[in-house]
């Protein structure tokens, strides 16, 4: 995502320096990146990539996973309308997506009505129901921000999740509600029998929602949400009711969550209790944060990374959740701006035209570092195999090599790789830091 704003292009070294650190405890600074106007280019590139991706990945599972990513992206963007832009921490946001999805499922099962509408407009109904629920809950939960809001959202989330097994008429109990998307009115002859058709439907909605949410963040209400997040008192002095601003953000977020729920209904043709429960609510918080709450495109990266982690890494190792946990803790500790913050850190260097100076130091540090980390992962896998594999089942395959986990040699190799990799990274780190400082210093005089 290219960010360029002629107004900010004046060389102000000190200012850029502030931005490099992306300090999230100072949200005002953080949001600056988002407040720069964006050119159309990144959008067009993203759309082109989305349209032509199926040409590269033709199998259905890749499409299914990409659909899942798209849904998570819409959901995470909607969540970030609250967390990143409005500074409201919600612990029960899955319910808005879930309720929207359940509503869509019920519409799918109303055969007469469903046959009269094309499937492509179904997510709108999800959005409306998500918005409706947000209007009800928001009416009392947005009165204050901070802990009170967070705790009310937790309570309401738990309540509705608990209702999912109690109110069987609407939520269908533990087995959920299922339907068949193909009964809708054909849309220009397309019946959505195949994954590829659903993929294009999903990305169409992904693009529409992302554009709308981006535009929302440019509207006065969207801007006021930032203001209220940073300093509600001051916003009040300006004559805005911070409560109403929060309420509007909440409703808009509910709408797009509902859209995500509707897309889920179309993709999976089933909604269950898991769409509502606190685990889903927690996951979306993690996804958004992993991507970075300070930037509009942060949740997109987070959603992609997390979906891959959950779906693809779990095919390779039982310990995927362990790695996910390590990743989250590491992200929070070292890159609180999230993955997006990590990327945006490089913008000043790019602007100063010094980014090329970073390539070699990066290679020197990160490559050995990555190898070291992989070595560490190998050690973890080997320990796990050693402890938990069946007796006599000593063979294990790791990184396309098969070996005996009870031999000494593989351990020696793995430890050596880890120590050497991390060792080199440690040794070269100071020079990377130097190069980094150099690359971010305008003309050497900041």
């Amino acid at each position: 995502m290219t960010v360029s704003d002629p107004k900010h292009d004046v060389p102000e070294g000190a200012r850029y320096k502030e931005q490099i650190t992306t300090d999230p405890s100072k949200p005002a600074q953080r949001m600056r990146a988002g407040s720069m106007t964006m050119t159309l280019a990144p959008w067009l590139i993203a759309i082109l990539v989305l349209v032509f991706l199926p040409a590269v990945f033709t199998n259905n599972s890749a499409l299914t996973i990409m659909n899942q990513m798209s849904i998570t992206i819409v959901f995470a963007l909607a969540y970030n309308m609250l967390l990143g832009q409005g500074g409201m921490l919600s612990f029960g946001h899955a319910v808005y997506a879930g309720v929207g999805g359940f509503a869509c499922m019920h519409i799918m099962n109303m055969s007469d009505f469903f046959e009269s509408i094309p499937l492509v407009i179904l997510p709108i109904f999800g959005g409306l129901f998500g918005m409706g629920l947000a209007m009800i809950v928001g009416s009392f939960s947005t009165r204050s921000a901070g802990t009170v809001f967070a705790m009310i959202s937790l309570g309401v989330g738990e309540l509705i999740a608990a209702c999912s097994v109690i109110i069987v008429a609407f939520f269908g109990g533990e087995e959920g509600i299922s339907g068949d998307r193909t009964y809708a009115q054909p849309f220009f002859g397309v019946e959505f029998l195949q994954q590829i058709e659903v993929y294009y439907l999903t990305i169409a909605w992904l693009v529409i929602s992302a554009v709308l949410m981006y535009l929302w963040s440019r509207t006065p209400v969207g801007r006021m949400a930032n203001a209220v997040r940073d300093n509600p008192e001051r916003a009040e002095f300006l004559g805005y009711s911070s409560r109403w601003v929060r309420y509007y953000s909440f409703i808009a977020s509910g709408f797009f969550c509902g859209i995500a729920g509707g897309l889920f209904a179309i993709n999976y043709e089933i909604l269950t209790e898991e769409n509502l429960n606190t685990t889903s609510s927690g996951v979306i918080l993690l996804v958004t944060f992993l991507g970075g709450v300070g930037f509009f495109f942060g949740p997109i990266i987070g959603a992609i990374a997390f979906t891959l982690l959950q779906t693809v890494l779990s095919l390779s190792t039982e310990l995927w959740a362990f790695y996910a946990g390590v990743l989250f803790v590491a992200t929070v500790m070292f890159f609180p701006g999230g993955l997006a913050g990590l990327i945006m850190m490089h913008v000043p260097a790019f602007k100063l035209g010094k980014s090329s100076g970073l390539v070699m130091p990066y290679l020197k540090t990160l490559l050995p570092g990555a190898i070291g980390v992989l070595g560490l992962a190998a050690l973890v896998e080997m320990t796990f195999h050693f402890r938990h594999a069946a007796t006599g089942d000593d063979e294990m395959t790791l990184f396309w090599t098969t070996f005996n986990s009870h031999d000494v040699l593989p351990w020696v190799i793995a430890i050596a790789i880890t120590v050497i990799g991390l060792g080199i990274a440690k040794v070269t780190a100071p020079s990377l830091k130097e190069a980094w400082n150099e690359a971010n210093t305008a003309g050497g005089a900041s």
Partner: protein
Amino acid sequence: MQGFGQGLAFKKIASKRRAVLGRIKMKNITKLGAVSALSLVLGASAAFAENIKIAFIDPLSGPFASTGTNGLHQFEFAADYMVNAKGGLLGGDQMEIVAFDNKISPKESLIQLQVAIDQGIRYIAQGNSSGVANALTEAVDKHNKRNPDSRVLFLNYAAVDPALTNEKCNFWHFRFDANADIKMDALTDVIAQDEGIKKVYLIGQDYSFGKAVAAAANKMLGEKRPDIEIVGDELHPIGKVKDFTPYARKIVSSGADAVITGNWGADMLGLGKSVIENGFTGPIYTYYAAGSGITGAFGESGKGRIRLISQGGINPIATDEARATYEAFEAKYPEGNIDQSRIFNVIGMLAEAITEAGTATDVVAVASKLEGMEYDSMWGGKIFMRPQDHQAIQDMHVGVHTNEGLDFDYDNSGFGVLTESTVEMASMDSPTTCEMKRP
């Protein structure tokens, strides 16, 4: 940022895609790199096409991981021991179990199902949670309808919601465990013979399966022993109860002579322990109070108290073949149990059907051979796959939790389940509402 998720695969493909990557901006690199890694992982096993692969889609992480992992071990062992060690099928094809972690989530299961189908897998095995089974059976039905050239079979080895072989039945779904109604039928046969039982307390988890158990118990006890009074019929939230003491108090003060519960996992252990601890002295009839650490955790306190309805009794062991199998399993998995012996029936019956059909790829032919199959199980008795609803009919055993007279214990605890009574070919003629549509 590539380091964790896709770094493993990234290195290999990086060279191939470098030319493309060079021109695309940062964010898109993430996306492209990610998806390339994806295609690599997904397509990874296409090379071993000659294996007959069964996708095992069950929780391997999270709170239900222990049941899932134990099931996987039994599947892997059964395939190796019963098929591969004997030369494979169809002139040497090996059977391979491919594990997919569904995290007990219906959504994840559907994604993994798609991945499995794309890898050319034609057999899906799943068992934990009727909710997941419901989602899978519908997805399989839709998939087979929409994609006639990559049809798959769904081998359900443990999800016992009666609906799956009644109103929700389809041609692709086969259930190898007895459903909740059949189990209750057998259980109530045994309870009906016990004249000492006058009052029964029903308690279960608040979801489809728990409700099915309660409904069946009410109906069947009413038919078989109208004099038995049902003093309590209770559902509690599933997986959320921390302390079962209040429920135990109600059971004790209701004066019940026996408790019937369909609870499983931590809910079973919590309920059982609490009921025993708080002064209940009668028998507790259960569906799932064995293995996966539960037997070990009950230990002495459950002795002679906990009764279990299941297929395929382990004590006394039925055949020498079964004994040899169990011993081989224990040698391989010293901490494991064969607590789902039907898994061996799944493999055995599938192998027989594939051999008879002469193909493993035409699942319609295999399914037609599975329907109506009569199979001699090494765990004793016959198994009949009823063609009208694809429900396996088999002997049901009611066993007691004890440490005496055992051939094999569970959880290395010295305790196990000893068969007390057997109902042969339970519910052979039970009605079904299934209207099987054959392709």
